[in-house]
């Protein structure tokens, strides 16, 4: 029983810390502008956190962090931004879970990260094109894909650094 509670506490604390990181990144990426991309679409910095939550804490927690983060964006930046954030996060999580389910452990972290990043921005693009009807979204795809690859690569590399530290946590 003690071990179980200690596990739960570990998970809770880790979730809280990841959520806090997501908020900080969300604020930071609000400050960085990307001139050529569709209006409102942001760098997927916070997507890194959502990915790590998915890997270390499971799908349900990742969804929780994503929703909570969107709520935070709703409070600070407004309705449109929060819907963007929510859709980006949700699509990213769904695709990553799908990949994990289909490929089990034959899929690599790199592919997961890249897919997650791309889908995060893709989700935002889809929402923006629904709101601003007539937006020709094909314009933004090239940048979206390339930046997704870069972001995904960076994330996967960072993950390599974090994995030993995570092992020490001894989460079950």
């Amino acid at each position, binding site marked *: 029983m003690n071990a179980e509670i200690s596990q739960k*506490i570990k*998970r809770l604390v880790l979730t809280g810390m990841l959520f806090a990181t997501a908020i900080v990144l969300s604020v930071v990426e609000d400050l960085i502008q990307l*001139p050529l991309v569709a209006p*409102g679409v942001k760098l997927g910095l916070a997507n890194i956190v959502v990915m790590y939550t998915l890997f270390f804490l499971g*799908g349900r927690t990742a969804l929780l962090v994503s929703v909570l983060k969107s709520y935070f964006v709703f409070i600070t930046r407004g309705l449109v931004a929060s819907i963007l954030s929510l859709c980006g996060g949700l699509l990213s999580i769904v695709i990553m879970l799908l990949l994990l389910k289909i490929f089990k452990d*034959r899929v690599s*972290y790199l592919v997961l990260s890249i897919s997650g990043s*791309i889908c995060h921005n893709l989700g935002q693009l889809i929402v923006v094109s629904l709101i601003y009807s007539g937006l*020709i979204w094909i314009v933004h795809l*090239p940048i979206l894909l390339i930046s997704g690859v870069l972001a995904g690569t960076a994330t996967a590399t960072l993950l390599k650094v974090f994995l030993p530290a995570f092992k020490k946590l001894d989460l079950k």
Partner: protein
Amino acid sequence: MFLLADLCHSPRVVGLDVERLYTMKLFNKTDIIFVLAIVVASLVFWGAYRLFFSETPAKAEIYHDSNLVMTVDLDENIDKEFSIPQEPQVVFHLFSDGSIRFEKSDCRDKICVRSGKLDMVGQSAACLPNKIVLKIVREHKPQKDDIDIIIGN
């Protein structure tokens, strides 16, 4: 507080368990194909865009609060700066080479101004704090084979 902990306790959602985390590789050789495919796809999209959209006659539409408030013909070789009456502090600049841009704005981030010149159908820029969207759309100029008049009941 433990209720919240209960909510977060399931690693076994969709079969993701911790042991598998360590067996998953960071990078496979076949990943290179994946990345290349994406790069190729992005080039294809970019090429398709330029192919289909660069030569069509274009006009700029300016929306304020989702209402179309001004249309500007881009092909008329005029160079001028102007604003819409709803937001006089936001200045647009139309160039004689057929491009248009946000020139000045009172918004905090100036994303609109930094979007640069727009000249092709499909491009757009927006100043969200001022609720302005600038879109480049197709111009429907009368073509030779278009019907001029239809007479009938």
